[in-house]
């Protein structure tokens, strides 16, 4: 015996349908993008492609220097952006008084994330390349990307530190630990997963940036790997851009192949961030 639906139930079901529909619409493009790249690019992935330098403007050979260049960039970015970000995050969350200056600084940092990346590139060109005479180099590019990554490392560090419950700080202070000891031994260990997650996401963002490195040191073709931080470098996103836009007669499979490698690098860092978070949670409640 089925009762007719009450208007209340009908509106419930309608809402549910729309919500799930919206979710599906959001997810589809992501899946399609990944699928298209894998289907088209998988054919290009060979051992040679991953381990050889490019030849004939990228039409033959591999993308090894671009992969390594991208890893160097990520490393250079995080070496600068993580310590600075954590220290600033500690200051902003634990020490800074809540006044207009702090609020302005916080707002400025949040807005840093919204600055177009090419603007960072021009900033890096003006300051690191020209003013500091680092030249077009891995160093200049890392510093440029680090400036951009700071928005994320500062914000995530601050949020992760603020999320540590007050009871823990009080418990530590109440046994006569100093404020610095409390931060070092109670607050930071608990904030660590959040901080690391932010750092890894900042790295994956740096790996994918094209515009800023374009003007501060990425090269389309180099015979070997960079030997010092002051050398120019190849990088995956820039390589993808040039082979896709500027090399006539380029094999489509190769282009998709470069995109696939870049995607794998970026996504694997995102997955890494998730794993770190989950493991930290499990360790916390583990016995």
């Amino acid at each position, binding site marked *: 015996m089925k009762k007719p639906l009450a208007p209340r139930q009908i509106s419930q079901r309608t809402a549910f349908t729309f919500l799930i529909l919206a979710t599906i619409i959001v997810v589809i493009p992501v899946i399609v993008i990944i699928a298209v790249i894998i289907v088209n690019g998988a054919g290009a992935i060979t051992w040679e492609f991953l381990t050889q330098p490019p030849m004939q403007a990228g039409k033959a050979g591999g993308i090894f220097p671009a992969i390594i260049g991208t890893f160097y960039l990520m490393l250079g970015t995080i070496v600068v952006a993580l310590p600075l970000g954590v220290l600033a995050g500690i200051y902003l969350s634990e020490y800074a008084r809540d006044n207009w200056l702090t609020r302005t600084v916080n707002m400025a940092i949040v807005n840093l994330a919204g600055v177009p990346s090419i603007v960072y590139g021009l900033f890096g060109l003006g300051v690191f390349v020209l003013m500091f005479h680092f030249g077009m180099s891995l160093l200049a590019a890392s510093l440029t990307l680090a400036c951009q990554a700071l928005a994320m490392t500062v914000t995530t560090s601050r949020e992760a530190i603020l999320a540590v419950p007050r009871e823990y700080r009080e*418990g530590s202070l109440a*046994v006569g630990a100093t404020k610095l000891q409390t931060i070092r031994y109670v607050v930071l260990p608990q904030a660590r997963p959040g901080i690391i997650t932010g750092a890894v996401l900042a790295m994956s963002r740096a790996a994918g940036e094209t515009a800023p490195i374009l003007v501060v040191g990425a090269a389309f073709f180099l015979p070997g790997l960079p030997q010092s931080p002051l050398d120019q470098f190849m990088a995956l996103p820039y390589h993808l851009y040039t082979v896709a836009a500027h090399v006539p007669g380029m094999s489509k499979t190769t282009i998709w192949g470069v995109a696939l490698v870049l995607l794998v690098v970026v996504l694997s860092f995102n997955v890494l961030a998730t794993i770190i978070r989950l493991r930290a949670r499990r360790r*916390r409640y583990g016995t």
Partner: protein
Amino acid sequence: MNVNLEIPEKKETINDEVRISVRDLNLYYGDFQALRNMTLDIPENAITAIIGPSGCGKSTFLRLFNRMNDLITGVRVEGIVELDGVNIYDRDIDVVELRKKVGMVFQKPNPFPMSIFENVAFGPKRHGRKNRVELEDIVEKSLKQAALWDEVSDKLGQSALALSGGQQQRLCIARVLAVEPEVILMDEPCSALDPIATLRIEDLMRELSKNYTIVIVTHNMQQAARASDMSAFFMMEEDRAGVLVEWGATEKVFTNPQDKRTEDYITGRFG
């Protein structure tokens, strides 16, 4: 009222019996006055219970003694709080040293997300004890004092968060004991615990009061009557500032209250 409003000379306060002495204390959060004209003595090696309705400043009062209120911006303290004859609100007081001497147990058990061992060793380590054997001794002694050793001696390396609520609270007491304090403040330590765990904590308090001065804030009248030697009854005035209505031996406060408000509260007529 049974409140001593005279400010005694310094010499008189250095007394074997009185451990903490509060004189003419006023505390403000910005413009709001939270405590008014408090004058009260806390006796040594006894349990003093602070009772009264919610919002009358009991926790704020307790947090005077280890200067935990300092963490809140906009707090202003007037008056004197003497511990062993020294005003702990003097400018040259080292708050870290004070907190070593005056430990605190909180309302919600707050063990750190570390092993049981590391929780108890936390304080001593921060104060420079690094020797492993020495730390093991401190941990064992503190856990025994907190009546938790038998339950956890075989799993000191396990996470403290896996313990039950009552065990966690005793662990927090052990963590405080490990720093060898002289005074222990307890802010409604049993409010998150079941009756059996509560009784265990009360037994433990009685045991500890032989060697420690304990001040406890409690909502639970039976707990105050059962476990404390001295009771202080707080109320709020019309502007919501907390005042001390009556204080004295627990037996006296509960069986023969001098103030009508105390009697009303204890007999459950309001609050």
